[in-house]
């Protein structure tokens, strides 16, 4: 066997430089787009989180009486007051304005049809 048969020189697929040239410029642009898209997504998420009211399960809050802080409010009493048996609870909350007092009302159980 001849040496050149062992290592024949092959032609690379056509259009190599065209493909290569196309790969030279898009990279930075793509990374810019990626950065811009990531930034926009993060900003959108932050805006949504800030704009949306906090989701508080009032039923649990009223039962446990410890989640008023999630509303940015301080409970006046240690425990919510259960009214009408165990059907609902009310809790007094202080706001940042001393002349405003809020009451949080939570329905603990949906009354049965006959009880309405």
């Amino acid at each position: 066997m001849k040496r050149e048969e062992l290592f024949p020189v092959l032609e690379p697929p056509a259009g190599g430089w065209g493909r290569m040239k196309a790969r030279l410029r898009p990279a930075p642009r793509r990374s810019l787009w990626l950065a811009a898209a990531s930034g926009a997504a993060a900003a959108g998420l932050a805006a949504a989180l800030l704009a949306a009211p906090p989701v508080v399960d009032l039923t649990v809050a009223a039962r446990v009486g410890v989640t008023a802080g999630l509303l940015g409010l301080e409970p006046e009493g240690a425990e919510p007051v259960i009214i009408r048996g165990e059907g609902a609870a009310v809790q007094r909350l202080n706001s940042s304005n001393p002349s405003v007092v809020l009451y949080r009302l939570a329905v603990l159980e949906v009354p049965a049809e006959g009880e309405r």
Partner: protein
Amino acid sequence: MTARADERWFELLYLRLEKPVFNVVYRWLWNADEARDVTQEAFLKVWNARGRVDAEHPDPLVFRAALNLASNRLRARKLWRLFTLEPLRDRADPGPTPEAALEAAKSGAAVRAAIDALPEKLKAVVVLCELSGMSYQDVSAALRIPVGTVGSRRSQALAALERSLGAMEVA
């Protein structure tokens, strides 16, 4: 260099070295599409590092990048094959088999097997010496080995190939 001069320099480099780099990488991967991709990735690395490249003498760097990428690709492929049935599929699809093609395929397969059987450090030397068009000096720079080692490894590699494939005529 200006951006336009950079691009012109790179174009000339690519046009001059695309074929030898492709041929070297092909002897690692034995797949034209993958060899083309790896060739382009190697040039892309050089392009991205153009500020630090010796513009007068970039060949060893291009081939070193290409060999590293080809070796990585080969390792990834071997790892992949550990978890798939790809080798079985390869064997199950011999393609068209007229006698001449079969004979050529047999001979091609024997050459491929003999080259693949070489230890990687011998294979790198012999493939670069035979296909890159670089001098021993440049091959030694590409592989970061002494020039004398290039010569001895090349001799060892050719001797091993001769044992596998029979005596070779030197053109």
